[in-house]
């Protein structure tokens, strides 16, 4: 079965298609406004004429490539190419500003490859068990996961924790704009139809990060960019095995988190990356370095979002339940070729599982070659004179925002939130915490309210459900650790003064 799976992927045509799929995924993932799901959807028609396994392997390659590709523009332009790369922006861009763009890209590619390979192996070894376990996740667990993601706010805003909390709260508030998912009530939409669906976080991110950064660079006289431009040839500096060994804990933990979160239906790479980042901040000996160019920040984000790929395929293959938008599209691809994912498929055609595993493995390895090449093409953009670079960022931001729903309203939202991002940056609020609140707000609110409804108002339900309780304990540890650490530091220095 394993050998058959390997031969399926090593078929020359299939392998060539995998290379094309991965390259396409990286390129599409790098372009803001084009998500991994869009990259997969656009590839889908080309797979109609392929054999079933070829088709699935190609789509897996696109998925793996897109999850990695988002980090390229996140690092070079502070514009995450995909939502799952938002946490990569926190440390990738500051690293680029220090003249270490090449290293940041290398770390992102290595971490993506590691996460992808790890989750592929986990998928094969434990798919049936994990799928059953994932179905135990209900509203309470989703609420706790969102809290876990939010728990890193105190660490993100280490110097100004209260302002970080305000920023996160503002993000949570903005996420409530629109129609309430439970009661259907209009909230803060002022009768405007375009606000009834809520505010999409992608144009907000593009505005608050990329556009705000353009304003800032221009306002300070573009001196900041000189460090990136000095890097005459921004090649990708591939970090070797030594780097993985040095940071093995972060690599491993992030991959585990990404795989587990990816398995949970509707959780996805962006949530996996944020939770993984949160955990990396909490457990780091130097949390103050996060947000300023910490290598571990990039590892945590990229390993987790690529690990979510294998994880999301678990419920899709084993139970026929898509783990997210991309896997829903893959489910369509399965159906088109007459395959019905589920226990019967795995029993009758087990080589499919192994073909997908090898598809993920080879695609992750191809990230090193293709990722370097494509990143180098994108990095030529940063060598341009700043007026040209600023224009590219603005134009990409506009088209990226517009592309989401073919709507000018998203461009307006991007424009408005660019001022918020600029002001937050100037007055020491945290844009990262704001985005965290915006992304996790709906999950937190809906999880909380639905669980209370199901339990008929019983708050203890969050403590009596074992998985929920475990996540709550981890969240409390995550939230309190930086506070205790800061108190210990203060005590230590008081002792020295005495």
């Amino acid at each position, binding site marked *: 079965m394993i050998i058959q799976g390997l031969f399926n992927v090593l078929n020359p045509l299939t392998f060539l298609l995998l290379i094309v799929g991965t390259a396409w995924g990286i390129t599409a993932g790098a372009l803001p406004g084009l998500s991994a799901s869009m990259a997969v959807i656009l590839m889908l028609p080309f797979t109609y004429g392929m054999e079933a396994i070829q088709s699935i392997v190609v789509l897996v390659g696109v998925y793996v490539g897109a999850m990695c590709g988002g980090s390229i523009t996140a690092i070079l332009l502070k514009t995450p190419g995909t939502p799952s790369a938002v946490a990569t922006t926190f440390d990738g861009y500051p690293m680029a500003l220090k003249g270490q763009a090449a290293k940041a890209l290398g770390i992102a590619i290595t971490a993506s490859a590691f996460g992808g390979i790890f989750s592929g192996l986990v998928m094969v070894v434990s798919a049936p068990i994990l799928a059953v376990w994932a179905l135990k996740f209900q509203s309470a667990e989703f609420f706790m996961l969102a809290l876990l993601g939010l728990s890193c706010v105190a660490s993100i805003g280490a110097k100004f924790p209260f302002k970080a909390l305000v920023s996160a709260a*503002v993000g949570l508030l903005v996420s409530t704009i629109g129609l309430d998912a*439970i009661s259907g009530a209009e909230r803060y939409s002022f009768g405007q139809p375009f606000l009834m669906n809520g505010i999409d976080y992608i144009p907000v991110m593009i505005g608050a990060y990329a556009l705000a950064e353009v*304003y800032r660079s*221009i306002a300070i006289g573009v001196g900041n960019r000189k460090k990136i431009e000095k890097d005459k040839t921004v090649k990708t500096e591939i970090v070797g095995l030594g780097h993985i060994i040095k940071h093995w804990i972060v690599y491993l933990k992030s991959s585990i988190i990404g795989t587990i979160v990816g398995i949970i239906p509707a959780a996805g790479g962006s949530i996996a990356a944020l939770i993984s980042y949160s955990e990396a901040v909490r457990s780091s000996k130097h949390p103050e370095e996060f947000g300023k160019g910490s290598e571990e920040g990039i590892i945590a984000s990229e390993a987790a979002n690529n690990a979510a790929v294998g994880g999301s395929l678990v419920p899709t293959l084993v139970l026929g339940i898509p783990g997210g938008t991309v896997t829903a599209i893959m489910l369509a691809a399965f159906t088109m070729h007459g395959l019905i994912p589920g226990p019967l498929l795995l029993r009758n055609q087990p080589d499919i599982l192994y073909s997908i595993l090898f598809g993920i493995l080879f695609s992750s390895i191809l990230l090193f070659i293709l990722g370097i090449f494509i990143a180098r093409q994108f990095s030529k953009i940063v060598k341009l004179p700043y007026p040209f670079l600023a224009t590219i960022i603005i134009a990409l931001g*506009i088209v990226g925002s517009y*592309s989401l729903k073919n709507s000018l309203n998203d461009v307006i939202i991007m*424009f408005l939130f660019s001022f918020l991002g600029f002001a937050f940056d100037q*007055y020491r*609020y945290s844009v990262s915490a704001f985005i965290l609140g915006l992304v996790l707000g709906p999950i937190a*609110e809906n999880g909380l309210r639905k669980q209370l409804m199901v339990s008929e108002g019983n708050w203890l339900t969050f403590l009596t459900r074992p998985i929920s309780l475990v996540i709550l304990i981890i969240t409390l540890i995550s939230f309190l650790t930086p506070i205790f650490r800061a108190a210990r530091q203060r005590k230590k220095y008081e002792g020295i003064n005495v």
Partner: protein
Amino acid sequence: MEIVFDLFIALVLVGFIVGGTMISADTVASDLLGAGGFPIIFAIFALVMLAVNHVLQTRRKSETQDHGLTREGLKKALFIAVALLVYIVVLSRLGFIISTFVLCFAVVRLVGYPRNLKAMLFSFVLTATLLIIFGKIFYIALPRGLGFIKELSFFIY
């Protein structure tokens, strides 16, 4: 200026609280928080955090951050924001090609690139690239404008 911004945030938070109380309370019986509960809770939480931060900052008398902003730079940033605003207003009227070309040229010149010809060439290449990638490869329905501009656009994308 920081205090002004903090006040602005406080005003927004109060707005969320007031708005939250006006949200329809009709919901499922066992929905304890209702549609307005979550926003009100977090708005109050944020106000408290803002107040605590203000008190601590006043006590610490923390030094003002040097933002490194220059008057000239701020003016340029403001002009770019205005250019963007104009772009948003005219985009649906003039269509993607004309609006984007003009915006790109305006931004390049506003940021300080001195040469008109090169700026125009760059704007043309960028607009064309975006049109090809997003309009033709990804089939994004880019704005076409009105009247004869719209008719002309069908020849291109």
